[in-house]
């Protein structure tokens, strides 16, 4: 498969109250971003278990992005603060294991930031496309 044809699989976890609404607004405003992005709706960014992210990579995702309310704006007041810590540590660990750190991202997108949502997704897809297929997590134990 040549780089030009490579279509990454991107899983985007979006909190129901801000980022999912932001994604809807991007749609309402007809702001285009690649179809590679598929959104999973969760009540809050703090619902996203690191296991889900690893699971996505296991099943062949090339990039995973988590979107939540801006810190301070969480519908449940504190959820995104916990999510922020969990993801910081998880991403740092993946980087430590030599997994490309560009494959994971957290973005705070409010319900009013449809344009930001589209920009973020365009940028993330571009970054992951340039990285190519996610092989390292699968290869981590297979010493050739």
């Amino acid at each position: 498969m040549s780089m030009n044809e490579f279509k990454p699989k991107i899983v985007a976890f979006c909190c129901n109250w801000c980022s999912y609404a932001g994604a809807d607004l991007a749609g309402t405003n007809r702001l285009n971003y690649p179809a590679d992005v598929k959104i999973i709706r969760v009540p809050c960014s703090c619902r996203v278990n690191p296991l889900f992210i690893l699971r996505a990579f296991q099943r062949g995702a090339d990039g995973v992005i988590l979107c939540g309310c801006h810190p301070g704006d969480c519908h449940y007041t504190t959820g995104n603060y916990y999510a922020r810590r969990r993801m910081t540590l998880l991403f740092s660990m993946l980087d430590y294991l030599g997994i490309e750190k560009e494959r994971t991202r957290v973005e705070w997108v409010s319900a009013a930031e449809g344009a930001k949502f589209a920009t973020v997704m365009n940028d993330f897809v571009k970054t992951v496309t340039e990285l190519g297929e996610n092989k390292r997590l699968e290869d981590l134990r297979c010493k050739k």
Partner: protein
Amino acid sequence: MQEMMKKRAKELLASGEVTRVIGWKKNEFDYDITPAVFTSAEEIDRDFIYDDFCGVNLSKFTFQHQKNDTKTLVFLKPCDSYSMTQLITEHRVDRNALYIIGVPSYGKIDVEKIKADGVTGILSITSEGGDVHVHTLYGDKTYAKYEVTSERCLNCKSKMHPTYDELIGFEGEVMETERFDEVAKLEAMTPEERFEFWRGELSRCIRCNACRNACPACTCETCIFDNNDSGVAQKAAADSFEENMFHIIRAFHVAGRCTDCGECSRVCPQHIPLHLLNRKFISDINKFYGDYQAGAEIGQRAPLVNFTKEDVEPDIVAKGGKA
């Protein structure tokens, strides 16, 4: 030291203050020590031991053998005491059912280091002062103790006992250590080098679960790797996922709760430096959220169930760890 411990254990048993004693017992070899429950003075006289090979962390064993209807005496080294404090914080052991005696640890010997030096046919090993004498089928050999002290003891984080009822010997202090140097070395590598390093290490894993079974932070009623409903349960060769992720998930699960006792690496039959995963989390937590030592105090709030509004953003990772 050992005799003082035996004396106190027997006194407490005799007075009825405790009905059981948890300590260390010698196995077939001098260096093969196992945790054990003692219930009589005779057993203690015969089997109880405390020497430079008693590396095993008694907190996990105590957790597994706890009885809430009777009081148990347990001897804890500083390392074990931290683990035990964390278990008490998490309500995994009942503090009231324990009588804890803190004992000092002056560094435990890693027999693997001796074996790695090419020594075989070991008959006995004795540690005296600063020297370690190895008596083998093929002759004797003497090491300076520091040469054969385990890595975790050379990088001892603390000689203090966060929780105890009484102490035998003097109370130590929190130590200045270089335990994060190895982590920093890895962090300084390129992602490709790190990947190759970890691939080399993790590919040796045989999934024996020894690390999990020895870990004092791994006390779940049912481990998610054993729970068919968790979505990550280990199924024989279903796919490579669990194999790949086991260590990441395990390290994440104990992040903020791991006291860095080093049991995971000690018990690993494949000598994978698993403590470097845990230390990465500890080092990140210290760096991002301020110094935190799990098990330093009963009732501490672990960093992953805590936050500040000013916490660093996850993109700090993409920026190479610098805010």
